[in-house]
């Protein structure tokens, strides 16, 4: 920490943030020092055709086909959708609905590994980045099946094509990683800073953005130093900079991130483009950089496998479609029998129905807490302490929204701003009565969106 450059130390003093939020214990210690290592290729990869927000991809292959690494397995003509690719070489043994981390069965391509390491002929390096046009870049991102790797899995191509009347000034690479336990973005920032910068520049080009910002929380000084160094080494870096943020949850939430950096608020129901910003995750930037340099589509991602039940927490480079169980084995197995397995972080992650579900594009972490870490207490009556009100980063009244949901008063939920909830879970975290407020608000949101 003492070796930090002067400018980094200075910017830490002036760390930016948003009003509200919480300071949960970080739990990152066990995995943050672990270098990214390549996980073994799966024996059988299950690749769902819908791993993103939007229309599912249509299968392009048949049962019995032999596929090579990087070969497209499915795609869609629809605008909001993303292609999926073979993450291993082998034979397609089934195209059928399979259980995904979200608990539903989704049409998936199942590949049996034949050990073939050759890449598909469609995967070939592109010319020099400088020579790529805006349309080329969009096309490559589209073809590579890149989606937001922070967890939302929104097709990146769509994000990079804002409505024509919106002027984009700022591209923000989200390296806040405010969820406890997760360290995958942190490792990427430290180990592959140049790819992060290339990804950022690739996003800036088609959007005509004026500046590129990499946002990092101030509990990650090594990452700040690494990125700052990579920026300084760029030939032209006048429009690139690091923004140091306070360590606070949900600092990495899109709206709160933009607020912290630009002081502007994304209007209710609006897009970041309304305040001249586009936000992309660190992992997404690296995936774009990989696609641009090697032509390899999104077939692997970094997954943090951690939690009190995991023997050797690790940051793994994992082929999409690898079952969770194989990764847990490669991290030394369980220390105690798992009660709950979470995909993502503890605050917004989802608990998966089975350990055999595959890693998908949105899998930032596999978190297996110990029994001690899971202390689910029975809900009690709300004592109206307003801790939820004081911590809500969207300035909502979560306890009253919860009451409205419980009483089916969705008219009230609407007027209290249920649709402005970003589902960060801060209200449920702070509640001394242990009410699951965010879940109640989601109920209202679903009801209101259904009626729309």
């Amino acid at each position, binding site marked *: 920490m003492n070796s930090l450059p002067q400018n980094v130390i200075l910017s830490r003093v002036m760390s930016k943030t948003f009003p509200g939020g919480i300071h949960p214990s970080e739990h990152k210690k066990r995995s943050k020092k672990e270098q990214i290592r390549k996980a073994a290729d799966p024996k059988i990869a299950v690749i769902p055709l819908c791993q993103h927000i939007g229309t599912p991809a249509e299968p392009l292959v048949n049962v019995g086909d032999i596929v090579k690494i990087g070969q497209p397995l499915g795609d869609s003509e629809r605008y909001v959708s993303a292609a999926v690719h073979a993450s291993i070489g082998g034979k397609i043994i089934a195209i059928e609905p399979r259980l995904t981390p979200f608990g539903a069965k989704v049409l998936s391509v199942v590949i049996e590994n034949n050990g073939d390491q050759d890449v598909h002929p469609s995967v070939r390096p592109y010319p020099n980045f400088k020579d790529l046009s805006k349309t080329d870049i969009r096309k490559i991102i589209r073809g590579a099946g890149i989606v937001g790797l922070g967890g939302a899995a929104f097709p990146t191509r769509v994000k990079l094509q804002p409505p024509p009347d919106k002027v984009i000034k700022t591209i923000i690479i989200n390296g806040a990683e405010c969820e406890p336990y997760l360290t995958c973005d942190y490792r990427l920032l430290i180990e592959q800073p140049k790819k992060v910068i290339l990804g950022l520049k690739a996003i800036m080009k088609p959007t005509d953005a004026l500046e590129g910002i990499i946002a990092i929380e101030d509990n990650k000084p090594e990452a700040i130093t690494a990125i700052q160094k990579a920026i300084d080494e760029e030939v032209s870096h006048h429009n690139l900079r690091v923004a140091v943020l306070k360590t606070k949850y949900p600092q990495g939430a899109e709206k709160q991130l933009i607020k912290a950096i630009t002081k502007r608020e994304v209007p209710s129901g609006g897009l970041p483009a309304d305040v001249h910003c586009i936000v992309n995750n660190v992992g997404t930037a690296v995936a774009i950089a990989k696609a641009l340099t090697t032509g390899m589509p999104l077939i692997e991602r970094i997954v943090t496998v951690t939690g009190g039940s995991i023997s050797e927490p690790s940051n793994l480079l994992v082929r999409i479609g690898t079952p969770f169980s194989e990764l847990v084995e490669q991290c030394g197995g369980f220390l105690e029998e798992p009660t*709950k397995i979470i995909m993502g972080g503890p605050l917004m992650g989802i608990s998966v129905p089975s350990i055999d579900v595959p890693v998908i594009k949105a899998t930032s972490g596999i978190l297996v807490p110990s029994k001690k870490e899971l202390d689910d207490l029975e809900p009690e009556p709300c*004592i109206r302490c307003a801790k939820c009100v004081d911590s809500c980063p969207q300035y909502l009244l979560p306890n009253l929204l919860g009451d409205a949901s419980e009483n089916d008063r969705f008219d009230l939920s609407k007027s209290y701003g249920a649709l402005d909830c970003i589902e960060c879970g801060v209200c449920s975290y702070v509640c*001394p009565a242990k009410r699951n407020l965010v879940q109640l608000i989601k109920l209202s949101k679903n009801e209101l969106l259904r009626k729309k």
Partner: protein
Amino acid sequence: MKPLLVTPAPHMKSKDTNARVMLDVLIALLPATVAALFFFGFNAVIIILTGLISAWIFELIALKLKKAPVTRADLRSASITGLLLALIIAPSVPWWMVVVGTFIAIFIAKHAFGGLGHNIFNPALIGRAFMVASWPILMTAWLKPFDAIATATPLATVNPAPATYLQLFLGNVGGSMGETSALALLIGAAYLFYRQAIEWRLPFAYLGTVVVISLIFRVDPVFQLLSGGLMIGAFFMATDPVTTPVTKPGRLIFGIGCGIITMVLRMGAGYPEGVCYSILLMNATTPLLDRYARGRIFGYK
């Protein structure tokens, strides 16, 4: 392997519980309780014990009648009501009156409205208001501190007017048991702020309004702040989460309203003190304030 538990996010929660929130209030009331015991001796012991024990008994009966489970939060909440009631009545009050007061507080003001978290009015204040209405003379028979130890019978009413600021600050004056020592109450309030159990808006809007009105009407603001039940009211009664607004603008309005009503009652009404009624009146506005005094939502102008 046994089936995995599937639950909605978040999968991590703070260590805060209702019971812990209640414990903080009880801890914060300790200095005032000690001050009451110090100044009023044996009378204080009897009143505080009666308040606590009767509150527990009435709480248990009420929960039993409702067939509700008895939780730690329930018992601690009853303790707060019993202790607060004991601290806001005169040290000369006979013990059976305290029992009637806690009955009204726990049974009528709290459980008749639905129990923990559902009551509209502050239970301890309702208990006190009932006692003042029923036994106005006994309830205002203030004792001079320390004298109560020497004589068991109530002395003549002591008017706090000749007291010095220092006496008022330390609590060496006549008054309700836990109200007299501003110092003890401020120590407790500091603890509540440290634990983030209360928020600045409401108490400071209340106290600020009292000061402003004092200055306008040329009465001594320091005397107004330190005397009567203002300190315990502002930091322990008007901050009762259940009966006060959750919205930030609502908390400000609530505090200002309490300040105005307190000063109107103090300067212009038959009662010498207005804190109790000001908070009860504002309690009635809480549902309205929650609905109409909402703050700005993120992303709106």
